């Protein structure tokens, strides 16, 4: 996979993951053109289109378009499955996910994507394992934060005692 874009029906970008090195300007240009092209498609049209020299696979879930650019030798149908798997992961994590969840917790959406895909390829094919890993990482973040806060408060208390 070369990149994945998530955007709303108004063309607002909600997530962008690039697996190829491109300048900011190029990324913006590609995003703008591709979003326009996909939004112009009618609802019953097929999920695949050829754009520049790439194959684009996109699917709309409620108000969000999930759009991936794959290479010539990649299997379009399995890419649809990858998109679906990602949506399922988001759904399980957020509990009936909607666009607002992804807007207000965009960094978590990225973390989940990074546990599922690596360098543009699927790294874990079991839904359970991906969710378990995210859970553990979140826990680690929380535990460390609490430890830090405890230490911080502990220091303060210590300082107060001896001031």
């Amino acid at each position: 996979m070369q990149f994945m874009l998530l955007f709303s029906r108004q063309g607002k970008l909600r997530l962008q993951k690039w697996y190829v090195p491109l300048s900011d300007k190029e990324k913006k240009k590609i995003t703008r053109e591709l979003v326009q092209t996909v939004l112009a498609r009618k609802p019953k049209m097929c999920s695949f289109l050829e754009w520049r020299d790439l194959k684009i696979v996109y699917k709309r879930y409620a108000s969000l378009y999930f759009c991936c650019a794959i290479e010539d030798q990649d299997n379009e149908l399995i890419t649809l499955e990858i998109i679906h798997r990602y949506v399922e992961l988001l759904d399980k994590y957020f509990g009936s996910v909607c666009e607002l969840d992804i807007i207000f917790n965009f960094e978590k959406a990225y973390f989940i994507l990074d546990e599922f895909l690596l360098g543009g390829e699927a790294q874990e094919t079991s839904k359970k394992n991906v969710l378990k890993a995210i859970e553990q990482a979140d826990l680690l973040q929380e535990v460390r934060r609490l430890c830090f806060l405890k230490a911080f408060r502990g220091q303060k208390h210590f300082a107060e005692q001896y001031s």
Partner: protein
Amino acid sequence: MTPSVRLQEMIRVIRSARTQGEERGIIQKECADIRAQFRQGDNGERSHSLAKLLYVHMLGYPAHFGQMECVRLIASPRYSEKRIGYLGAMMLLDEKQDASLLITNSIKNDLSHSSQYVQSLALCTLACMGSAEMCRDLAPEIERLLRASNCYIKKKATLCAVHIIRKVPELAELFTPSARSLLSEKNHGVLHGAVVLITELCEHNPDTLDQFRKLYRLLLLFFSYHFISYSPEHNVAGISDPFLQVRILRLLRILGHNNDTASDAMNDLLAQVATNTDSSKTAGSAVLYETVLTIMDINSESGLRVLAVNILGRFLLNNDRNIRYISMTSLQKIVQTDHNAVQRHRGTIVDCLKDQDTSVKRRALELSLALVSAVNIRSMMKELLIFLSTCPPELRSQTTSGIFNVAERYQQSFVLHIYLFAGGDVRDETVPNLIQLITTASELHCYTVHKLYRALVKEISQQPLVQVACWCIGEYGDLLLKGECEEIEPVTEDDVLDALETVLQSHMSSPATRGFALTATMKLSTRITDNVDRIRSIVSIYGSCIDLELQQRAVEYNALFKKYDHMRYRRVFSYVQLQMKAPSGNVIPAHGLGQVTQTVVLNNPNKASLPCLFLCSCLSH
């Protein structure tokens, strides 16, 4: 208020902005805050400031001042800060930025961190945006992790290795020894990564491919195991780990390509997968699709190939438009090699011409054109012409040219109909082809010239049609005037000259078209009796025309009138031939009788695709 809420609060505020200007104001204030935060240094708030900045960046605002902060956060000992720092690096840094090199050392340290989640962050970032230099520095670390770590890290290290090989192909040798041993893992994630890695190694280097080729036996073995085994956590719509299955099939394709032993061994398994995979859902169709691609690309036996084509044919009847599209794309690839097998599905393909989706229509069109043969030309032509009358504008040109090429090959009388029907859409290169066709179909000359004359009188905006019409009138003008064909009204010399003059004077005519019209007028001077003076005057007008080519022609013709008038009527002169060069450089030879005394080369400056070499043979026998 926990820190994450502060980020969400900012997002809420930004979203509540009613105009673009208001939003920009809010963003500016927030960025100023963020900058101040960054300057303050370590206070437990840095990760949240960076997260805010990343949101702002996603909206499209500049965020390069956050790059150094990413570097700092990655080096922090706190997991939350590392996590957001690495995310920032993936979003704000790319290999073109200098700052990306600064994180190489942090990544190196984190790759040997005690926590696997920290290792995971480093691996993910390297695989996403690692530059060639970073890859070279860190490759030995990755190789170590490939061999000796837990499954969670191994699967990530494997895909990281894939990225390294794509960036620095020479490093492929480093990973080749460990790649093979990865296949003995039970974990699906590691297996999947291993297959991707081996695929990458084989694609990069044919020698490595030979090395790994013997693996096909091992792959076949555990593919069949996975195919029939039931693993609930990897199950998708009844298919056991379709992602892994698709990957293995793709690797088998590479291993079996051009290799008889491997291909033979695969036949049975591929047949089994092709027949037993349930394709009612996308997952199953994906596996079937990959199987078909593999069957077609290796040296499979003919029975298996027919099975594959039949699967594609079944796909064509699927309700799901995606599956129909995929099927036609694949059929297009094999239509030349397995023509008869694909022919069986011609009916369904032609039906797809009526689909609503333009992409599907386009595929159906390409396939239909490829399937036309001498046997089915009539029915196919009917369908294609019906399609032409209703097809969307972006496909018209392709359709017309396609029909034209096909007609040219099999049934030339159709060619004329196409011109009359859609003369404006055919490409310019087809004009010389049509002219040559008309020349050879001598029994149709009378009919052709009449039909074209009528078309010309009706409408002169379609350039290719007008050009051919002019040429025909010039060449077979005598047939037009004599009116020997049935069911046509007679045409007078005045009518013909009127028509040609209209073309010459119309602003819609391109310079090339005017050239055709002028030449035709000239040719008619030998075929008509009453209006020679009129022709002479037309030709002399153009002797002072601004267009260089027309002027040159007119001057030459005038010279013919003046100096060689006695020769104009010689029988020989009725062969004023055009030797045309099609863009591809093919030269259609002129049927010249006699010696060439005057050769005029005219290059059309406006249409480089149509240079004409004009031969005037005016010599005695």
